[in-house]
Each structure stands twice: as C-alpha cells, then as structure tokens.
C-alpha cells in the first residue's frame, strides 16, 4: 500500500487558533448581549409605538441579543395578541436589516435576518394575511440562500411556509415542505421539531377530513417518537378525536380515556376537559343525545368557569347541534343567543359574533340543520389561525 497516500485520510486536522478564538469570542459576546438585551427590550416595549422607528436606529439595538429577545416576545405574543406580535416582528426586521453584515462572523447576520423575517411572516399568518406572509418568508429564505451551514434555520422558516400553504389551500405543497423539513430535523437530532412536523402533517390531514390518514400519522408518532408525557397525552387526545370522526368509537373511547387520565396526572384539567369534549361528541354521534348534552353542558361550564369563553362557545355549539338533532330548536336558539352575549362581553372576534348572529336567526326561522351549526363552529375555529377570514353566508346555507 502506498503509505504516502495514507496521510490525508488519517491526519488529524489542526484547529486554526484564530478561528477557534473567533468562535469563542462570538459565543461570549452573544452571551453578554443576551444578558443585556432584556433591559433594552423592556425599555423598547415601554416606549410608544410611534417612537419605535427612532429607537430602532440606535446602534445599541443592533445586536443579536436584542433580536433574540424580540423573537421570543413575538413567539409568546402570537397566541395572545397577534397584532402586537406583528408590530414587534416588524421592528425586529428593521433592526436585523440595519445590522452591518460584518458586525458578526458569517453566517450570524443572515441568520438574524432570516429569523426576523420568519417571525414577521408568522405574525402575518396569524392575522390571515397569507400573501404577505409568503412574501416575508421568501425574504427569510433569500437571506440565507447562500449560507450552506444553515439548513436547520432554513427548515425552521419552511415549517412556517408549510403552515401558510395550508391556509391558502395548497395542501400538496405543504406536505412536500413538511416532509423535507422532517428529514432535516431528523438528521439534526431535533426531536422536538420533528414531532411538531408530524403533528402539523396530522393536523393538515385532519383538516382535509382524511381522518384515517391523520390517525395513522399520529399513531406512528406515538409509536416512533421518544415523546414526553405531555406530548403523549396530546397525541392520545388527537387520535381519540380522529377516531370519533371516523366512527371508530371503541378506539375513540380508549384513546380519549387515556388522554383524560394523563392530563389529570399532569394537573391539566382544562386539557382533560378538551378530551372530554370528544367523549361528549361521541355520545351524540351514537345517538345517546341526553347523555351527550348533559356531558357537554358540564364541560362548557368548566370552560366558562375558567374564563375560556371561546372554548365554552364552541362546546355550546356542539350542544346546539345535539339539540337540533333532538328536534329542540327553541332551546338551540336560546343557547346560540347566550353564546353571542358571552362572545360580545369578552370582545371576541366580531366575525365570530356575526356568524353566530346568522346561526341564531337561521335556527329561529327553522332553516338551520345540525350541519349549519357544524359550519359555523368550523368557521369560528378557523378564525384562530385566520382571524381576518370572511364569513360566507352562502357557504353556511349550502351546509344547511
């Protein structure tokens, strides 16, 4: 064997001391910035929004630490106040774009820009501004297109794209993007995001009413992923709901019971109540209307007791559906009106209130069927991810 050729294979590479020092210096710098950033971002969030553009121009804002804090803020605000999340995400984009490209070693600055644009896109998605969200996500991907080493970041951006594609009725593209992201997360050993990708696929299948495929996707996750107790409980819950939608009530009862038991063990009574909702729906579907209505009423009370008006209203619509099946339109109408009052008092999305108004009127005129109630319930549910989505009366009438 040619010994001269052995050297390149086995030679242990010497670390370039300058590069190692740059790495360590960057690591410590980021740590310092993270520590300092909480004060800066607190100050920023106390400042009136009209003055944010001035603040964004200040060089002490142009750090990775500040951008990370703003990113965390956006993530938490999305579920609570997407408009505020959007404003903060927009600010983060301005800051990220103002960071000089040589402020950090490559590829930190493109990475910062990509995440800022991704957060902006996500906030737009939550507000139902899908076309703008896709444009923002294009910017996020473009920022790191030339960075070979940021495949994980690219996948994080593309998961948001997959969610947006679902909303614009492009499910095939969404599936393709999710499959691609799953490979990347698996290769990086990122079990958490791998599980989220799987759940996103299940949700998409469920939305497409492919209940069997959705259930299989969830069952595979349950069998294959090293999930924690909370994730396991969530998976049992969604598998139970899919089973109920499939009419497989035996499996539905089994998985929902397991989910309820686990949620109680985890001291999460409201999650357990959501699983109980599946059981209530099961009673109604199997014709046990009185039992189903009583079961659902107890759950609705539990939601309302905890100030969960929207969940209480959605549960109320399940009851209204059962009442219509029983032929008790006056009671269903009265319940629909009660839900309108609750939604109005809680200042919930006016589009939901409008849809409920049409429903109560339709029940009053005896033109509403259980399918009409389902249509309104699904519309209200869709407002969670698309708060600006229009309510189409024609579609409701068609459903009825």
């Amino acid at each position, binding site marked *: 064997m040619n010994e001269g050729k052995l050297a390149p294979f086995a030679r242990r590479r010497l670390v370039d001391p300058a590069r190692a020092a740059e790495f360590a210096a960057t690591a410590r710098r980021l740590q310092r910035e993270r520590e300092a950033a909480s004060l800066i971002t607190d100050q920023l969030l106390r400042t009136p929004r009209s003055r944010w553009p001035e603040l964004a121009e200040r060089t002490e804002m142009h750090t990775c630490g500040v951008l990370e804090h703003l990113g965390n803020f956006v993530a938490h605000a999305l579920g609570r106040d997407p408009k505020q999340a959007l404003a903060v995400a927009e600010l983060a984009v301005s800051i990220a774009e103002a960071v000089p490209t040589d402020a950090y*070693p490559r590829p930190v600055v493109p990475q910062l820009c990509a995440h800022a644009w991704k957060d902006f896109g996500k906030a737009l998605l939550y507000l139902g501004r899908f076309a703008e969200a896709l444009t923002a996500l294009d910017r996020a991907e473009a920022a790191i297109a030339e960075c070979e080493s940021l495949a994980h970041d690219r996948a994080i951006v593309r998961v948001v794209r997959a969610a947006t594609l679902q909303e614009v009725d492009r499910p095939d593209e969404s599936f393709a993007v999710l499959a691609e992201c799953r490979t990347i997360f698996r*290769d990086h050993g990122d079990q958490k995001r791998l599980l989220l990708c799987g759940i996103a696929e299940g949700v998409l299948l469920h939305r497409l009413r492919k209940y069997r495929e959705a259930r299989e996707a969830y069952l595979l996750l349950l069998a294959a992923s090293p999930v924690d107790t909370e994730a396991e409980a969530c998976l049992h819950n969604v598998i139970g709901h899919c089973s109920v939608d499939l009419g497989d009530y035996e499996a539905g009862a089994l998985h929902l019971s397991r989910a309820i038991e686990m949620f109680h063990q985890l001291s999460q009574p409201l999650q357990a109540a959501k699983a109980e909702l599946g059981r209530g729906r099961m009673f109604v579907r199997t014709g046990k209307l009185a039992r189903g209505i009583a079961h659902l009423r107890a759950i609705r009370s539990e939601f309302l007791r905890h100030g969960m008006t929207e969940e209480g209203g959605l549960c109320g619509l399940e009851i209204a559906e059962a009442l219509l099946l029983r032929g008790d339109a006056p009671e269903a109408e009265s319940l629909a009106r009660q839900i309108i009052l609750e939604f109005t008092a809680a200042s919930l999305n006016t589009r939901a209130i409008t849809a409920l108004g049409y429903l109560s009127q339709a029940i009053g005129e005896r033109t509403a069927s259980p399918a009409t109630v389902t249509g309104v319930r699904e519309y209200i549910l869709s407002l969670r991810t698309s708060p600006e989505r229009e309510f189409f009366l024609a579609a409701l009438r068609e459903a009825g």
Partner: protein
Amino acid sequence: MSPLTREDAADLDFEAIYGQYFDLLAQIAVFKFQVPDSEAETLVHDVLIGYLRKSEEILDLRAWLIGAICHASRHYWRLNGRTVGTDAEIERERADPASLRILDSLPDQLAAREALECLGPRYREILHMRYFEGCSVAEVAARLGVKTKYAQKLITKCLRRAEREYRRKGRSR
C-alpha cells in the same frame, strides 16, 4: 463519544468545543462528501458559528453538528455546480452514524494503517479506493463492476469489518 448535553456545553470552554468537533466535522465534509479541504474547514467553522444562536436549545450537540455538516456539504455542492444526485443517491450519502463513529475512532495514520492491515485484500482494496484514492461511490462501483447501491453496502461492510478487526487485534495485545 457520549452525546454532549446542553448543560455540559454550558460548562465547557468554547475553545474546547471547537477543538473537540472540528476534526470530526471536517473529516465528514472531506471524506463523505468530497468537499475540498480548505472549503471543508470553512464550512465547519460556519456550522460551529451557526450553532451559537441555538446553543440554548440543542440537546445533543454532536448529533446536531453532524446533521448540520452533512446538510452543509450537500448545500455546498448545490451552490457549487455538482449535479445533485437522485433521491436514492442522497439517501446513500446521508450520515451513517455507525460509519461516522468508525471515522472518529481512527484518529491517526497508524490506526488507519493497522485497521487496513487487519482486512483481507478485497476489503482493503475497496477502502483504499474510497478513502485513499478519493473515489466516489459510483466510481468504486464502476471499478468493481457492481451496482452503486451494492458498492455502498460493501463500503459500509468493509468499514465495520475494519473496526471489528482492529478492536479484536487491540484486545489481543
């Protein structure tokens, strides 16, 4: 090498992290993906810098870095003009944790030579083509007159045999 946890990483000196993973990641880029030497070192540096923004959330640093360098190497070739292979080829090129451990366990020239000496002539020839002559899997396949997929299997088998024989020899000393 056991996976480095987030807590461990926090305690370690950053220079030590760099030193610990630099060689392994560069070997993967060079030998598994045929990225030119100097480019591979830049890729590794970028991967390690890119990790810093995520240091709080990565639970298994070694797995994350290996995934990152494999994808970075593929992306390098996408950007630098090599025809991207079929899905099947990409699948074959995906990091095989077993073979990465083997590379990691052959730290110096002596070890490599000794490992090869433990093998029969055919196994030795295959590994020589792949790792010393720098042949791609397809080139190894062409020279052996077998299909590419089978060549990949043979290479993995040879690496495993080399590791097994080398360990056995080590124990008998």
